[in-house]
């Protein structure tokens, strides 16, 4: 059964090896597109040492920059010893946490739906729903200080939940497969966002020709630590709290039992008296709400204005985060942190190499990691490991008819 195959997936060792292999493949990709390296390889036979040296330099530079941007920059440590700021040591980690926040939340969105047997490919559309509501509440409504923040956050949840609820309703009432509906809704929401951002009467910033929303009120921003953007803040706490809530819900509550039963075997659930359709609606509502929360944490960051492509890659990233985290809430947090680090690192590398290594490399790395994690047989073959008892995302019994 797919769900427990994902949740009881391969061991930590396999995960680490998968990440390593992905970095190797990513490294090869970096090499292929570095003009200095390709030039060096074209004269490989006359100067093999140069080709290898250039290759090593290119890849190690890229990855070391990623590390410095996302985790720790050794120069800040030595600077601290010489009277520099201690806080600066933590800026990379803070950035990682900040980037991880929306990823963890969309990851939770996908993960919780997955535990109930649903593929929520539409976290992006739900994200947009939440963003629209949170933004509008942010600039269009005036509220006292703490209340404003909370209302916007709740608004984000509601906006996303509405979209999620709609998907669940369609599946429950008409049997429409959620993969197609969610993907289609994604595009619908992108277009809706674009439309709203083109009219000042709706969400467009006045006197603007671009599709961009106004800044939201200062008192609606989520507080955060100091340092250069992006900074970790209350958003991160929200993400962790959400993960804790999901963990409790899934393993210790009756609702979670219901969701898991429906996900593992809808027919057994029905025979046991569980209302499968209602479960679908509720879980999609929740999943949508989590994606909406993700939007709220972004939209309510400092100096952010909602634009027509603010949703970025949060949707697909949520899927990869959830898969890497084995659809378990705490695993999702860890996976979110890893991918957050990759994102921060990617931006840093793009800057450091003057966009020779664009930050899209991160998307590729993410995809590769998930692919390798999902195919332990492949990892085993590459690293010549013996088969362990753990299996990967194998033996799916799920087809179009669920």
């Amino acid at each position, binding site marked *: 059964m797919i769900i427990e195959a994902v949740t009881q997936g391969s061991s930590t060792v396999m995960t680490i090896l998968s990440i390593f292999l992905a970095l190797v493949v990513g490294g090869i990709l970096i090499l292929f597109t570095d003009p200095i390296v390709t030039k060096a390889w074209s004269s490989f036979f006359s100067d093999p040492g140069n080709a290898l040296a250039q290759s090593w330099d290119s890849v190690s530079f890229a990855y070391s920059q990623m590390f410095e941007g996302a985790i720790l920059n050794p120069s800040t440590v030595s600077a601290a010893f010489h009277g520099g700021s201690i806080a600066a040591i933590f800026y990379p980690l803070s950035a990682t946490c900040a980037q991880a926040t929306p990823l963890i939340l969309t990851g939770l969105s996908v993960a919780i739906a997955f535990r109930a047997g649903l593929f929520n490919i539409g976290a992006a559309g739900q994200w947009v729903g939440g963003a629209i509501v949170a933004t509008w509440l942010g600039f269009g409504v005036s509220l006292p200080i703490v209340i404003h923040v909370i209302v916007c956050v709740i608004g984000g949840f509601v906006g996303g939940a509405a979209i999620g609820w709609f998907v669940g309703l369609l599946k429950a009432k008409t049997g429409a497969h959620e*993969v*197609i509906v969610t993907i*289609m809704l994604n595009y619908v929401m992108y*277009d809706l966002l674009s439309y709203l951002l083109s009219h000042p009467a709706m969400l467009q910033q006045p006197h603007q020709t671009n599709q961009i929303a106004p800044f939201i009120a200062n008192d609606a921003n989520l507080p955060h630590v100091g340092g250069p953007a992006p900074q970790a803040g209350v958003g991160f706490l929200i993400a962790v709290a959400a993960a804790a809530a999901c963990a409790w819900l899934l393993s210790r509550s009756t609702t979670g039992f219901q969701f898991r039963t429906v996900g593992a075997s809808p027919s057994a659930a029905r025979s046991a008296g569980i209302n499968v359709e209602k479960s679908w609606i509720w879980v999609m509502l929740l999943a949508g709400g989590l994606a909406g929360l993700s939007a709220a944490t972004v939209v309510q960051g400092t100096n952010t204005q909602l634009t027509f492509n603010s949703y970025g890659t949060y949707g697909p990233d949520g899927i990869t985060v959830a898969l890497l985290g084995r659809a378990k809430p705490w695993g999702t947090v860890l996976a979110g942190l890893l991918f957050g680090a990759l994102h921060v690192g990617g931006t840093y590398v793009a800057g450091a190499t003057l966009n020779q290594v664009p930050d899209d490399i991160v998307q590729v790395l993410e995809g590769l990691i998930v692919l390798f994690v999902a195919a332990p047989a492949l990892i085993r073959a590459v690293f010549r490991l013996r088969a362990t008892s753990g299996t990967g995302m*194998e*033996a*799916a019994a*799920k*087809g179009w008819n669920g």
Partner: protein
Amino acid sequence: MTTLTAAVRAPLTADRKWLATGTFAFLGVIDVLIFGLLAHKGDAGFVLSASGTIHIPVIKVPAAAICYVLGALTIAIAALRGTFDLSQTQKRWAIAGVLVFFLVALLCWADAGAIPLNIIGMGQGALASSIPLILGALAGCLSERSGVINIAIEGQLLFGSFTAAIVASAFGGLWVGLVAGSLAGGLVGLLLAVFAITFLMDQIILGVVLNVLALGMTDYLYDRLMAQNPNYNTGVSFGSIRIPGLADIPVIGPIFFDSTIFLYITYVAVIAIQVALFSTRWGLRVRAVGEHPTAADTVGIPVLWIRYRNVILGGLLAGIGGAFLTVGSVGSFNPDISSGFGYIALAALIFGRWTPLGSLAAALLFGFSLELALVLPTVNPVLPPAIMNMAPYVATIIAVAGLVGKVRAPAADGQPYVKA
């Protein structure tokens, strides 16, 4: 269990008949209230001849009146659907009729009082928009009929279009580009096959991951290569080929027989796969593998080989569809050029009940809505482009939710075959 009847355990929560009736009635009401009542004064005009062919005068019709009439007819069909038990064929005619009426009413409404619509141009555009959808759906058909779910059509289209563009621009010209695009799609197909069939990964997740990878790769390579060096993305594209004789038929000729090589490839592919699947030994074995792989295995049919072959073939076909998006039309590649078409192709496949002819019909419908989204805002500036862009996606949702009915995928679709 020795019974063969597959038990559908879930009670349907909405009776299909009422769903279809409701959808028809909904569309009919839109015909009357929105298209009819809200139409501008004036006539809608339709241009039906292209230059160089027999001249047909422009057809002008009173827009609002037509909408009312069509709306009334649609509601009548809705009533029939709800009252009588129609046969399968009658149900399909009903859907076709309602959709055609809706489209005509939409066109009348959009064009009321404005410059006449060029039906020939729209037809050509709709057909062109459909090509990646049809080829994508055929790719899905080949794969799923043998039992492997292919969500990665999007990735195959994307990768195919990128590879075709870059190879055609920098390495060899149009035909080489076309072949390269096809191979790129085949490569994604190979990945799908290996991870699904040998590594037993869940096929829906795998498809999504492959799409994410394809998007990431093409974005990365675009930034790295194409953005830096315009020689890698020159925008070359195929010209159209006119089929003499056939292209002179009024109305139909210019639409169906004056286009790039891709359209003709599509015709051949649809017919070939339809015949092969249902009338040849090849097709019987493929379907056996998709319905009951154990039974096929016990009579000596190589299940895994057939699945590998079909998935890769599908990828090659989808790669051609992707190539069309660049070298077959606009020429240059830009990130996410496939914008969800792979998923629409999948919906067309399901809507078409996993048959080539059915997918063709569905894909044409979606292609037409894509074309409308492009054309109508230019004709009638009232229509906001952003909302019109939504149209094909909303149409897909309505189709999948309201009109698809009880579809039966090949029985073993999505289930990896593991010998006991």
